[in-house]
């Protein structure tokens, strides 16, 4: 290779990085603006809303919370108890025991006095066989239904729940999530307050519950996690949920609803085909599919997003578990993007195809890969002695500064709007996290993404990374 062509190559690569960064800057600036507008609007609108009354109305729309459980014996009873104490009239808690190998089912039966009931099941249904349906003999647990089925994975469990539910809306949550008592009211309101568009799904913020004081299924005190890994994730979540999704929500192009806290119009979800059992990114995939379904049906629809802190969960505190989780996320991402590749720059899908999908493609999928290879090419260039130092330093500094700014913005916005961490020390810790995150935490995320992509590309079998829960009851 002549030095001339190398020169061209380098120039070309520089251009790619530059464009990427510029687009990134503008995109995130717009995002910041949109999310701020959306949040302000949301806050004003909800400042005088009397939620508590509708819940007593028998006319209130019915809703089922589906909580798939796999080997959750340690915490299941406490978690279900918490789910049963939500403030709403017309709801059902459906725990789907996905063939647990531990005593999950036995514990449930004992704690809630469950008894097998007879129910006719359409043989048409394609999920893994259902072993039994249980209801409590006690009226006080009348809202609880437990489904015992053979193991088929999270998607399969959720599909079964969706199918067996007879309510208008279904919520798919992780059983270990802590929902605030008002959660369902917010959800149902979001579903039914629109008159021009059909709301097909409602998503919400996931908050980090590590180190918080939880007692008897309620959040007593919010604390900043003591674990550094959890702190970084908290920062990440704040950025993504408070700014990212809020901004996408503003332009009605939200493409992901967290699997830990997502609510759907049951009929639409089933009509669109339910959860895909062949992907590890089922929570993202179902939103893609439901959106496409509605687009194809040409029914005006929307997806609502609630920024209020309604759902709290524990994030992994060990590096190993975190890498597994992120690896799975990136595989799910890739699978979903691949499955719906026709949407890429497809004007038929509006902003979804022209903006959302490309964003996910470039910045959620391609970006880590680009970063990874960029990093290595820089090392190679350095040893080859052809590294353009000025350009490298300039662009790195710019990206670094920008990412810190964006994180700061997210932190301050959180303080302003929800004020969850009100100790000055906590805010300072978070800001410190933001400063060191690009070097301390971000590489882990990139590495996991590369790992996931590699696995997917070379077809290496790997399922869900198991996460060992410490359990909320223990924290009490």
């Amino acid at each position, binding site marked *: 290779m002549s030095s001339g062509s190398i020169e061209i190559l380098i120039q070309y690569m520089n251009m790619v990085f530059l464009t990427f960064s510029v687009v990134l800057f503008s995109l995130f600036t717009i995002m910041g603006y949109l999310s701020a507008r959306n949040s302000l609007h949301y806050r004003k609108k909800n400042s005088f809303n009397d939620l508590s009354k509708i819940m007593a*109305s028998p006319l209130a729309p019915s809703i089922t919370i589906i909580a798939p459980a796999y080997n959750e014996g340690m915490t299941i009873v406490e978690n279900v108890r918490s789910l049963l104490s939500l403030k709403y009239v017309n709801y059902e808690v459906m725990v789907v025991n996905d063939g647990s190998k531990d005593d999950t089912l036995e514990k449930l039966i004992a704690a809630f006095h469950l008894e097998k009931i007879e129910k006719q099941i359409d043989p048409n249904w*394609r999920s893994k066989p259902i072993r039994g349906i249980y209801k409590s003999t006690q009226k006080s647990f009348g809202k609880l239904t437990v489904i015992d089925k053979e193991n088929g994975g999270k998607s399969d469990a959720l599909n079964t729940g969706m199918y067996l539910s007879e309510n208008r809306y279904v919520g798919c949550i992780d059983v270990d999530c802590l929902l605030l008592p008002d959660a369902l009211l917010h959800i149902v309101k979001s579903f039914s*307050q629109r008159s021009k568009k059909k709301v097909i799904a409602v998503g919400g913020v996931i908050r980090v519950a590590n180190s918080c004081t939880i007692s008897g299924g309620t959040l007593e005190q919010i604390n900043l996690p003591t674990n550094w890994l959890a702190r970084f994730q908290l920062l990440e979540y704040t950025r993504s949920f408070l700014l990212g999704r809020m901004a996408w929500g503003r332009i009605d192009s939200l493409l992901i609803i967290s699997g830990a806290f997502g609510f759907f119009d049951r009929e639409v979800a089933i009509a669109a085909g339910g959860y895909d059992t062949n992907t590890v990114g089922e929570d993202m995939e179902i939103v893609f599919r439901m959106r496409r379904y509605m687009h194809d049906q040409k029914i005006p629809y929307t997806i609502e997003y609630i920024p209020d802190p309604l759902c709290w969960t524990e994030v992994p505190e060990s590096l190993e578990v975190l890498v597994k989780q992120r690896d799975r996320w990136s595989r799910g991402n890739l699978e979903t993007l691949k499955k719906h590749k026709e949407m890429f720059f497809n004007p038929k899908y509006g902003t979804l195809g022209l903006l959302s999908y490309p964003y996910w493609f470039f910045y959620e999928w391609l970006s880590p890969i680009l970063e990874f290879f960029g990093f290595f090419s820089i090392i190679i260039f350095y040893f080859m002695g052809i590294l353009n130092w000025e350009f490298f330093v300039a662009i790195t500094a710019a990206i670094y500064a920008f990412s810190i700014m964006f994180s700061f913005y997210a932190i301050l916005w959180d303080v302003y709007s929800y004020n969850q961490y*009100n100790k000055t020390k906590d805010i300072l810790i978070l800001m410190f996290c933001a400063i060191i995150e690009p070097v301390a935490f971000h590489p882990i995320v990139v590495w996991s993404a590369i790992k996931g992509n590699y696995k997917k590309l070379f077809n290496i079998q790997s399922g869900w990374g198991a996460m060992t829960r410490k359990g909320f009851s223990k924290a009490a």
Partner: protein
Amino acid sequence: MSATTKKIEAKRAELAPVISNFLFHTPEGPKEEQKEYVELKITIRDYLKDKQFRRVVSEVLFDLQKDVSGSTRERLFKLYQELGLHEDAYKKLNSWQWHKIAKGILQLSKMNVKDAYHIIKRFVNDRRSVVRKQAELATVSLRTEGIEYVLDSTRFAISEWQQLKLIEVLGNKEGYRPPEFKDWLISSNKDVVLFALRLIKHYNQIGAEAAITTLVKHKNDTIKAAAVNCIIDFNFHSALPTMKRVFWKSNNDVKIAILNAFAEMGTPSDLFFLEDVSKNEKNFLVASKAQSAMNRIQPDAVLPSKDLIDVEEVPVVESSTKEDTELDFLSLLDIAVIYEEVLPAEQASIEFSEVEVYDVVTVTEETVESYYENHLNPEKGLDAANAHTMSTQEKMDIYIHMTQEERINLLLELKESSKPQDIKFLEFIAEKEDHSEIRYKAFRILQGLEKNENQHVNGGVDTPAVTETNETDYTVVDYDTIYKPEDSVFYPLFNYGDRTGKVVLVKEAGKIGTDKEVVFLNHLLETETDKVLLTAVKEALDRLQPKPSDTGKDESETVNLDSIRNLEVIVDVETLDEHNSEEKEEADQRLPLELLFLNESLEDENPNQEEEIEQLFSFEIAPEYFKDDYNKLVS
């Protein structure tokens, strides 16, 4: 909990006893208390000059208002105005910020400031949705006539949540007497109509039957669906014919709602309509809804509902790939037409399983059509009535969508000019029409026609007997010598039914019977005296026995439809039979589902019969049977 909420909580706790004192003060109490009260009053007046304090007090009162009722609540309202807090709320209405206006409206209405009604109602058509929604709620809440005002004047959409809230506000009114909401069913605002429907439902205003039925014909599908749902709630049977008429012009939601209505209120006379839907509807969900509606009307008409666990254990029945057995059975009958020769049934059913379902239907239609064209004396010519120029299938399709009046007129015309090619069509009417008068008319015309036909072919023999007029390999023998009436599966059942049950049985025998049933029916013809029953028996016999016109021509590629039908059934019925041979046991164990229609007439069954009945209904469909179709649909 954050610091601000804590501060507010603290302030509230501080204020709580003061407010309690105000609210529960009685002039009769001891002197000490009176003094305390007066002092408190003076202090609070002083404090109220502070804007911040006023805001907190008004918030506290506002919150308390939600939790108390009765006289305490009234006192609370009085206190609010006494302290002059409503003035602040009024001021908010003049703000340029929408959320302030909305807040003002909310406070005024919650604190029951009646005088605010006229000011607030001006915001009912405000452009800003939050202001508008609050104004609607306040208008309805403050005065009894508020709801009328909102329904009359709103130009905007009303969301479901808002409707619920408005209904809730109405529900909180003591001794409220709602107006007749049907008056708003003619509103030009779609959401007002929907809301009115909901209100009618909520207040159980059954007087709106006619108006709601008319709404089924509304051009907006959402309204249509809501009207249908309302009809289901109120059980308005009179709306069923209207729903049948609009069915094919509706979207899937409405179709499903209509089918739900039939599932709730339908009678066996609606089964044909549902069958038609399940056959001709392209959408899987709608078609399967039709089938489940059929099941609701006549349990076990289509799908046996079995516990999944049991089904899983059942060996795979390799019979067909279709989602619906009823449909499947019927199409098996139809497919048979295209076979060049009569296949042994076991073999045939295996062959059928490989045929693509929808292809089959198309082939069948064509085949049936050409069949009729070939066999029904086309040389007699077609007269002016366009009915004769169409295929039976086309006629049926048009007929379904006709009104009752049109149907009667058509039959009057046909009475004058009916031709043998109309027989099938007339049979269809005589059998499926809901309206008894029309059914009877069709039947009379048929009688006339068939009489002519029989005379023409059989040389005046008008007893419908089996005749050897063709060269098919279907050997006709005198069954009376082979079988006894007791041999028919219908025989034991017949003795336990009441009159209607018997009629149903006879009809079923006519539909699916074999030669054994012919003997059985002939036996009935001799022994029964009930006229209605006899008519049914005759009809059934007509159906069962190959008509001369059907067997008239002997083109080799066509096969007698009825004989195929019979053959198929023979096999299945014999599978049932306990004395059947080894060979037959190997045959497809599935029963023709038509047999299951019998269920209805078996309700008051003799215990001795239970075993047989159980056998009748003990068939299953393997889950794999549906799986493929479902997966195909999903992917």
